């Protein structure tokens, strides 16, 4: 019992210590943002490696998720003769939930882990301390541009995910299952509300982008500078981002759609 309590206390302390370090780190990153914007070339490079290179996996996943959604929803809806509602059902699921959440999870696996590994290896090979010795702040030069790029990319990737997903369900619904194309789009247009659905989905993806990128760059910067240290940090990025995104999704959903 004693040992158990001790372990609990120790775990709790180290959790809060990390949380504290993470917040200090975030503050330093945010104060480094203006100078990152000054080096906009660096942000562009990172937008390429964090954002553009993630489009493939986001697009493919969005397409398959959309196609599967189309199939499954159709099977249920057709029992009630409501297959014309396929458009809004798919669009709402994607725009409100699946787009932001799945894009964030994929983002953590594709871009977040790469960010952590890259920064962790730069630390392990003394590139970060070398930079400090040259009187260049690595938070401004290395972390801030990556943070900006992740923060900008995530909402765009989520939007691509949803858009491609809707197209996927369109192909399945209209091409394979014979749903009426006019009904598909017009129902979608009338049922999906810009503020209520689209904007809330965008807010989610902005929050997820912020958290996922923060976790990724912090884990890299805080990694133990050895081979195992970096590999553990990379794993932690993916796991912690998944927990954070799923937890926040519940909170945000409750706040946005809870009371009607």
């Amino acid at each position, binding site marked *: 019992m004693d040992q158990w309590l001790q372990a609990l206390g120790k775990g709790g302390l180290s959790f809060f210590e990390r949380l504290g370090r993470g917040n200090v780190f975030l503050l330093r990153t945010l104060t480094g943002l203006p100078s990152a914007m000054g080096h906009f070339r660096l942000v562009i490079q990172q937008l390429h490696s964090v954002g553009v290179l993630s489009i493939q996996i986001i697009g493919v996943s969005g397409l398959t998720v959309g196609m599967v959604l189309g199939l499954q929803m159709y099977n249920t809806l057709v029992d009630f003769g409501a297959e014309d509602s396929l458009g809004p059902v798919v669009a709402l699921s994607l725009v409100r939930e699946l787009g932001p959440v799945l894009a964030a999870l994929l983002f953590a696996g594709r871009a977040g882990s790469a960010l952590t590994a890259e920064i962790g*290896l730069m630390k392990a*090979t*003394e*590139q970060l*301390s*070398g930079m*400090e010795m*040259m*009187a260049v702040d690595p938070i401004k*030069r290395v972390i801030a541009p990556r943070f900006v790029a992740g923060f900008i990319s995530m909402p765009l990737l989520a939007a691509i995910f949803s858009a491609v997903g809707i197209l996927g369900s369109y192909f399945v619904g209209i091409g394979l299952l014979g749903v009426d194309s006019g009904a598909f789009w017009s129902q979608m247009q009338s049922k999906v509300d810009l503020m209520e659905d689209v904007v809330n989905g965008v807010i989610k993806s902005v929050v997820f982008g912020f958290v996922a990128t923060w976790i990724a760059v912090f884990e890299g910067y805080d990694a133990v500078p050895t081979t195992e240290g970096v590999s553990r940090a990379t794993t932690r990025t993916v796991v912690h981002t998944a927990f954070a995104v799923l937890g926040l999704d519940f909170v945000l959903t409750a706040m946005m759609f809870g009371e009607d």
Partner: protein
Amino acid sequence: MANASKDEVLVRIRGLHFSHGPRVILDGIDVDIRRGSVATIMGPSGTGKTTLLRLIGGQLKPDAGTVEVDGQNVASLSRGELFQLRKRMGMMFQTGALFTDLTVFDNVAFPLREHTDLPESMIRDLVIIKLNAVGLRGARDLMPSELSGGMARRVALARAISLDPMMIMYDEPFTGQDPITVGVIMQLIRRLNDNMGLTSVIVSHDVAEVSAISDQICLLSGGKVVADGSPRDLRESQSAWAKQFLNAEPDGPVPFHYPAKDYRDDLFGERD
């Protein structure tokens, strides 16, 4: 502060203590490095030579004692002041620490681009001059992953001198170099030091090489300074430490082994 620049001593270390967790690395060090001199820090592997350079550069904070560089106590500087000081300090890391996503050229240009507003054409010329000095002008378009260990270290050297600092710290500049390059780097260090009025701090194990170019050799062992003086002082000194180190004798006051329990016990005693 005003007369600090007239001070003879550029780096003044007093009563320096430093530990990594429970392990005491430096245990009360006093060293003076004179302006314009080439000073070498020697000592067995793992005694804390790199650690000492990091303390001078302000990357680590002493547990006790002070490190003064150019009259400023490094540990008490604000981040901005420390960065100002570091612009005047070059450091060549033991591992090179080149930026792996930049070419050789861009690595050497990095400090210039960060800290000066020079036009690109002038940066190019400066970089070429520095790379030529280390014999790697032809390697400017290679990536660090395409360099050998010795070449990477020479690029790191070129980068360390790119801002023409007042002081340069070299962490093991000769390791992994062929004899010709060792000679070139030795001459380079001495020439840079004298022509540009620099102060150089070298960490090295190569007794013959550093004796030839150093004004001062400081021997560290077991967290203490065991000998300090000109190469000639050290050769003539009767100190057992100096003798063992300069003559590369396996036995003497400097232990070859990392602290451990008795060897015989370890092999034949009780297993843990």
